[in-house]
């Protein structure tokens, strides 16, 4: 019996030793994010974090944006997902449904940085039942870019209503090199994935139009989509490639002078200024059908419930949302910091773009915080919009498809 006891004790001690040693080594955080720009600050931030938190290793992986969520969802189900990642609010309901997220409330309660996060951002990014799964790390608001030189040349002022927008777009669509074909288009519309923000500004702004039952199929809802379709089919103020155009194309066309207006956010302003200097400025999106609607572009971080070391993962994400680090992070992504200290001292953007952003805040909105929104953004909207633009379905039919997704 004694022999057995000794053996057990030794074995237990050995196991405990291994576990301890393993525990000390296992403080590893696999982190996924997506940055478009090559000049990526992540390695500097990781170095700083690792120096401040000896024993924790962060493996930060830049995953291409186009397949970011496809990769994330499938890897979570396969059990090979990251410990923490950059996530958008419209993915939250789906991630909660998958039981993939770890609640942050207990950590947030004890964290000094909680009071540093800009007012409302934590409320905005909370789940439907009030639990916090997301820690905001950056934000943007979509606004309307326009070419100041082209507007001045034609004696136009930036549009404040949809009617003015349409008139300006028509005037700006013209043949400048005399070959009889337009080479500048009024508006660069994003018909591909991610373009729902453009459509939403021109449609969801209308009185009584949202994603509730019958709202999109109402007269006002259909009028919004019809307005977009008419701009392309009748007024021909979008480049002909609009149905397929994505981020790269609309930004490229605007910077190259092929379009005179487009909708995007402050994240692209540095590149815009680099390409166009003071020939580019921004204003809030126009008022259409009695209201204004623009997208609040959020980006938060989250800890996954399957994380190997949740405390280490929390330490890393809270590090990214702390004053100083958050400014570094946002200087690289070109978006706006979420901490009060960094916001007060922010000089990362030209003033006119910050102003357009701040002036857009009062009517900045999210898409519905439900599981359907992922399908809406990834498949239903792009396909329906493209089919409506090329005339395969009507505006009424397009809105009906979205209505079915949300209310059936």
């Amino acid at each position, binding site marked *: 019996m004694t022999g057995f006891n000794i053996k057990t004790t030794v074995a237990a001690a050995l196991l405990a030793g291994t576990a301890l040693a393993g525990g000390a080594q296992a403080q590893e955080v696999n982190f996924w994010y997506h940055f478009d720009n090559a000049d990526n600050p992540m390695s500097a931030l990781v170095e700083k974090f690792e120096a401040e938190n000896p024993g924790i290793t962060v493996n930060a992986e830049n995953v291409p944006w186009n397949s970011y969520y496809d990769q994330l969802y499938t890897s979570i189900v396969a059990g090979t997902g990251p410990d923490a990642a950059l996530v958008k609010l419209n993915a939250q309901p789906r991630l909660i449904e998958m039981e993939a997220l770890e609640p942050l409330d207990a950590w947030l309660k004890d964290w000094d940085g909680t009071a540093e996060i800009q007012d409302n951002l934590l409320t905005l990014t909370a789940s439907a039942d009030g639990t916090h799964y997301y820690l905001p790390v950056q934000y943007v608001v979509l606004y309307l870019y326009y070419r100041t030189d082209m507007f001045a040349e034609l004696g136009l002022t930036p549009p404040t209503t949809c009617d003015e927008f349409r008139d300006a777009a028509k005037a700006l669509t013209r043949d400048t090199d005399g070959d009889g074909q337009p080479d500048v288009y009024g508006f660069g519309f994003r018909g591909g994935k991610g373009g729902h923000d453009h459509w939403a500004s021109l449609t969801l702004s209308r009185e009584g139009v949202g994603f509730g039952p019958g709202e999109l199929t109402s007269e006002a809802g259909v009028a919004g989509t019809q307005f977009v379709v008419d701009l392309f089919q009748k007024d021909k103020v979008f480049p*002909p490639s609009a149905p397929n155009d994505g981020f790269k194309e609309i930004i490229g066309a605007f910077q190259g002078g092929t379009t005179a207006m487009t909708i995007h956010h402050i994240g692209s302003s540095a590149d815009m200024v680099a390409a166009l200097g003071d020939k580019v400025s921004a204003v809030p999106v126009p008022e259409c059908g009695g209201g204004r609607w623009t997208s609040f572009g959020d980006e938060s971080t989250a800890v996954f419930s399957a994380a190997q070391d949740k405390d280490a993962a929390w330490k890393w994400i809270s590090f990214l949302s702390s004053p100083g680090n958050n400014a570094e992070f946002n200087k690289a992504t070109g978006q706006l910091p979420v901490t009060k200290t960094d916001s007060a001292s922010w000089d990362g953007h030209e003033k006119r773009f910050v102003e357009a952003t701040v002036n857009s805040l009062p009517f900045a909105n999210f898409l519905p915080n439900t599981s359907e929104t992922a399908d809406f953004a990834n*498949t239903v909207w792009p396909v329906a919009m493209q089919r409506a633009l*090329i005339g395969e379905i009507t505006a009424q039919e397009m809105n009906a498809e979205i209505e079915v997704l949300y209310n059936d």
Partner: protein
Amino acid sequence: MTVTTAPPVPLARRVLPLVMLSPAVLVTLAIVFLPMVQALWMSLHDYVLFRPKNFDWVGLKNFISAWNDPVFWTSLRHTVIWIAITVPAQMLLGLATALLLNQNFPWRGLARALVIIPWALPSVVIALMWVWIYDSNYGVLNDLLLRANLIKTSIPWLADPDTALYAIILTLTWQGFPFFAVMILAGLQSIPKSYYEAASIDGASQFRQFWHITLPGLSGVLMTATLLRVIWVANSIDVIFVMTGGGPGYATYTLPLYAFIKARTGLDYGYGSALAVSFTLLLLGFVILYLRRAGRNIA
């Protein structure tokens, strides 16, 4: 009289070949057969990836939905067009190239090496390259056609539902013709020179020689290469995915792409698998034809 019986083969010698084959068989089973069975199994269930706990048996429901799904039929129609144009176009272009490369001319070795380039490039690179060629603002194709006065305004090749599928077919034809060229070239070199000499002594024209010697000599190669290409082209989605992602609307959806989008972007693995299984059944005819040919060659 004594009865002679063959000495029994020792057990070890009977088992040894099987033992030596087993690693390959096991690997094939694990990476080919298992996923196939898994896809078949998933296609009979309601399986949406973001609800991993719900895995309900639904029988043939997904297949019935596919049958009633207009996008399924649109995709199937595009798949048929896709195969029916791409493969013959690749073959004709490959045949012409091979005949050319079979002539004697200086730097022939270099020409033979260069022709393989489209085939050797990664599909994603090819797709991105052609997206730029077709671009309606900066694309070189529109520029050339405008300069030659063949068109009056730039054509958005990939954004126009009438041209998008054919534009991608042209890209895939360019990518795939070297495969035929190389296969046919090898076939050409195996036709004995003496046949042509005899034919020309008998006064056969170039065309007659081609028709009665070259083509019959190549028939085996052409048949095998075509069958293989049909299967590959049918399944190829990378170029379409990068160039248009299936758009505009459903204008460039093929069945494998539809299955991929349903499963990977829509996360509906049940329905996506049902689409993939349906398509596999449709392709099975070609697969069987190929296997029978391959089997005959071995025999």
